[in-house]
């Protein structure tokens, strides 16, 4: 068994296990790698999970079950029906509740011995250091680049390990970024992709089970770090492909020129991560600057008044099958080759699921010389919410 310095010192006399806890953790206590001392370390440990969604769900559940004494959860979102396919910490009866409340109840039910600390707020450059300071390990289960860079930089500045996991469709990545012992996230990816170039899970989809695989890897790495056993994923990027059912591993190196953990760091305090990621305001990833928009109400009115507006759907055929408003479909990817099917002089309203892809389609059509093209704000989701609830929301 490999041993390394555990993140949590052996608590000796300061932490004791009750008879109930000894019975609960029996399967840990009979393994020499954990044993009584290790279980006490876990009880003394404080772990923060950033996000209680796809990755945060299995992660927090297993950490609580394993007996991590303090589990912090950061989230400000509300449980939505579309979360239930993968966010197993929340149930159907939790829809509409704050995620931290739902997670708190579930964690306390699994293990009432755990001190669950709720941070119902957005993680920001203003509060991240203060929140992180109390914890031994930070586990990153966020879904966007600004928060990922924020979590990384805060961990580097505080010299805390950042247990990283990320998922997309059928593929996941996991690693442990710990600047004190190896590379950080910025050594791997110095800069984020420009907004819109890499689709999010909301846009690209994700297999519901995938975060289970990656989240449990993150939980495993966390417990190993706390106990000081095994070989952590420091300096290694684990790649998981659910379709091929294969794991691969890439070597990661510390970049001496890394702006935050390198030899001459230029980032010495937390910065504006929205700006760093090229997002001028919250949620602007969904928007393309300067694209003319039309609301679903305006569109409905124009259609009702037969004002000669043509509607085009630029989603994929499998999405069209789930929900459509009976208009013509040309998937965004095929649009450049199918411009001839559209009349340049027509007034066109373009929609997709929420408005991001259609904004790109509007830009594309404008560049091709179309004059009267509008992006349907909020896409078919807004149409379902505000105009016709019989259209399913997906």
């Amino acid at each position, binding site marked *: 068994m490999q041993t390394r310095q555990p993140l949590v010192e052996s608590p000796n006399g300061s932490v004791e296990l009750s008879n109930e806890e000894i019975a609960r953790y029996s399967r840990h206590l009979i393994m020499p790698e954990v044993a009584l001392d290790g279980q006490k370390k876990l009880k003394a440990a404080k772990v923060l999970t*950033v*996000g*209680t*969604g*796809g*990755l*945060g*769900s299995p992660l927090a559940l297993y950490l609580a079950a394993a007996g991590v004494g303090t589990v912090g959860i*950061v*989230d*400000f*979102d509300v449980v939505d029906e579309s979360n239930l396919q993968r966010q197993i910490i929340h149930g159907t009866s939790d829809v509409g509740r704050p995620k931290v409340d739902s997670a708190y109840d579930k964690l306390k039910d699994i293990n009432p011995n755990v001190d669950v600390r709720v941070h119902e707020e*957005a*993680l*920001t*450059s203003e509060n991240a250091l203060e929140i992180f300071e109390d914890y031994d390990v930070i586990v*990153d*289960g*966020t*879904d*966007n*680049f*600004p*928060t*990922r860079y924020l979590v990384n930089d805060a961990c580097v500045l505080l010299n805390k390990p950042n247990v990283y*996991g*990320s*998922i*997309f*469709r*059928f*593929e996941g*990545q996991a690693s442990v970024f710990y600047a004190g012992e190896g590379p950080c996230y910025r050594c*791997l*990816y*110095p*800069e*984020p*992709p420009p907004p819109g*170039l*890499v*689709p*999010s*899970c909301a846009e*690209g989809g*994700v297999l519901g089970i995938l*975060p289970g695989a990656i989240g449990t890897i993150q939980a495993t790495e966390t417990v190993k770090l706390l106990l000081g056993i095994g070989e952590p994923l420091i300096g290694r*990027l684990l*790649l998981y492909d659910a379709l*091929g059912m294969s794991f*691969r*591993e*890439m*070597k*990661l190196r510390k970049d001496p020129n890394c702006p935050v953990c390198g030899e001459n760091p230029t980032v010495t305090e937390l910065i*504006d*991560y929205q700006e760093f990621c090229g997002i001028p305001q*919250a*949620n602007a990833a969904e928007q393309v600057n300067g694209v003319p928009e039309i609301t679903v109400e305006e569109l409905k009115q124009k259609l009702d008044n037969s004002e000669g507006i043509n509607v085009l759907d630029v989603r994929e055929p499998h999405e069209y099958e789930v929900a459509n408003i009976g208009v013509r479909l040309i998937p965004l*990817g095929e649009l450049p080759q199918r411009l001839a099917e559209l009349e340049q002089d027509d007034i066109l309203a373009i929609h997709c699921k929420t408005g991001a892809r259609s904004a790109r389609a509007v830009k594309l059509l404008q560049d091709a010389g179309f004059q009267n093209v509008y992006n349907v704000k909020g896409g078919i989701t807004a149409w379902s919410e505000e105009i016709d609830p019989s259209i399913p929301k997906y």
Partner: protein
Amino acid sequence: MPKVKIPTPLRQYAGGNNEVEVGGATAGEALGNLASEHPDLKQHLYTGDGQLRSFVNVYKGDEDIRYLDGQDTEVSEGDELSIIPSIAGGSVVRRCR
């Protein structure tokens, strides 16, 4: 010919393939040939002035080509190049500053 492994987010720009065999004696040549065969991939791999994008990492085997000879890294028959883009998916913590 070396093989290039295409990650899920980029497959739609590479004819749906998860692996493509391309000619080329260096990593740079192989990627260039890949981009010429699949022009839609180009903007995802390269910046306007032809530099490999910084959020796209390329590995030969399990080594980042940045720590080999970069785009000049030699590749031969049977070598495997992997494109590893940054992905952000996980939970929804949408706002941050």
